[in-house]
């Protein structure tokens, strides 16, 4: 069954990626323009209908896929770029120097994404970018923790000792030994964080701290659809479905990777 999880995840993600790639070059209509009557139901020529503003929902969904991937990629890679080196440093250095990144991560951990987003929106104005920045910073502690724990495990391995014994400097140990061996764990963490980032963005949009009207994300569409929840409930179906597919995809991928990579799960060894 473990492969099934992985494959389902990959399939769902592939769908989103496909939409995103298409969205870069082409959408049936402009995603922000008024192109038809307001609040049309699904049909032709507006496949999924139009929203309260008269914009084509299908175009907006395609356009949103691009942004959702962007949010995921930027916020997760941003967090990893800072968190992973800090975590490796913390795991490799003994004594109080190694403690510092861990303690800083603790402090940061107390500032959940939402809090940061509120502050950033106040400081810089709410936008997809400030949301990404907030999500990114809030994700750093997770990477620090996981990288540190994994590094500690790697550092206890014989090959690290062997490398040290042959005089390999710390930086090379980090690059040659630690990083490749903690990469799978980081991969799992990244895919999980990806799903969380997508949901976080939706949540921020709900609070009006996320994307702007001019760059509609699925979260924002959901928020706008909420005003019509009684009269036009299908309005809310599409972005909701899209978010569910994307997050589900990344979560399943994470689970699949974990099962695939965890040597302890190869039974009876």
């Amino acid at each position, binding site marked *: 069954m473990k492969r099934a999880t992985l494959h389902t995840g990959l399939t769902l993600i592939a769908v989103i990626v496909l939409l995103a790639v298409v969205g870069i070059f082409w959408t049936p209509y402009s995603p922000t323009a008024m192109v038809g009557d307001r609040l049309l139901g699904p049909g032709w020529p507006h496949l999924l209908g139009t929203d309260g503003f008269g914009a084509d929902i299908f175009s907006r969904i395609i356009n949103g896929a691009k942004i959702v991937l962007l949010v995921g990629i930027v916020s997760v890679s941003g967090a990893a770029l800072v968190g992973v080196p800090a975590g490796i440093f913390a795991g490799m250095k003994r004594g109080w120097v190694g403690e510092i990144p861990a303690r800083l991560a603790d402090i940061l951990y107390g500032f959940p994404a939402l809090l940061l987003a509120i502050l950033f929106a106040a400081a810089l104005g709410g936008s997809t970018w400030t949301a990404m920045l907030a999500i990114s910073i809030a994700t750093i502690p997770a990477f620090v923790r996981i990288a540190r724990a994994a590094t500690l495990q790697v550092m206890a391995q014989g*090959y690290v*000792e*062997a490398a040290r014994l*042959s005089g*390999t400097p710390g930086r*090379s140990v980090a690059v040659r030994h630690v990083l*490749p061996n903690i*990469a799978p764990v980081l991969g799992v963490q990244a895919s999980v964080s990806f799903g969380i980032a997508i949901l976080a963005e939706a949540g921020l949009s709900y609070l009006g701290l996320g994307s702007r009207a001019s760059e509609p994300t699925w979260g924002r569409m959901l928020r706008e659809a909420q005003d019509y929840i009684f009269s036009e409930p299908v309005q809310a179906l599409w972005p909701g479905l899209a978010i569910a597919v994307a997050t589900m995809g990344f979560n399943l991928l994470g689970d699949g990777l974990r099962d695939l990579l965890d040597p302890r799960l190869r039974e009876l060894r």
Partner: protein
Amino acid sequence: MSIVELRGAGVTYRRGGRPFVALHPSDVVIRPGERVGVVGGSGSGKTTMARLMLGLVPPSEGDVLFDGRSIVSLPERRRGWLRAAASMVFQDPNSSLNPRMRLRDIVAEPLRSPVLQGRGDVPAPTVDVLAGALQGVGIDAGMLERYPHQLSGGQRQRIAIARALISDPAFLVADEPVSALDVSVRAQVLNLLTDEVAERSLALVLVSHDLAIVRHMCERVLVVERGRIVEQGAVGDVLDSPQHPYTRALVDATLTL
């Protein structure tokens, strides 16, 4: 003339806050080209002693000399000459090879280390050199591109030996090099180790709980019990007529066919 010398060196660990003496102050001298066995029960401090000789644990008291120079207060970056001159083979061949590196890179790693750059006689890690190193331990040069998990346990341990010897050290520590291996392949690894040590006339410290192996490979033996050296001397003398009760118990416990 000694290559390694412990002068009243002891190690105390803090375990769960409580100090624990893993090695009481001991005096040990290893001479160049000498093969010394260290035997004792589990947890008696054998590994600790071996790591102490390589500067991998700091002594809590006493002094450790390598090539006549104290290494105790040297920071890591000034231990290059020590790193260049000493190597180690670990007990567990699985964890001592990085699963994500090819054999080529594993064996080449010591040659790439900056500590060897000062030494004139170091070969560049070319394919020929690496293939030669592999052949030296009886492994086909075609395996250079393989990963450790594609090898058997015995082959892995031979790679570990190749890595330990490629920088042409003067001193080798082998910490239970065969106890994780299947009986059927132990002999091959031990033969290899014997040949290499003889060929390079390097000093060897062999840690083992198997008296037969120590008897076969070493000239001198140290018996360690609960962090103390309780007996030492020539292998034949100590193992044939043990003086200390602990040594006697060890000899008695050894099963033979």
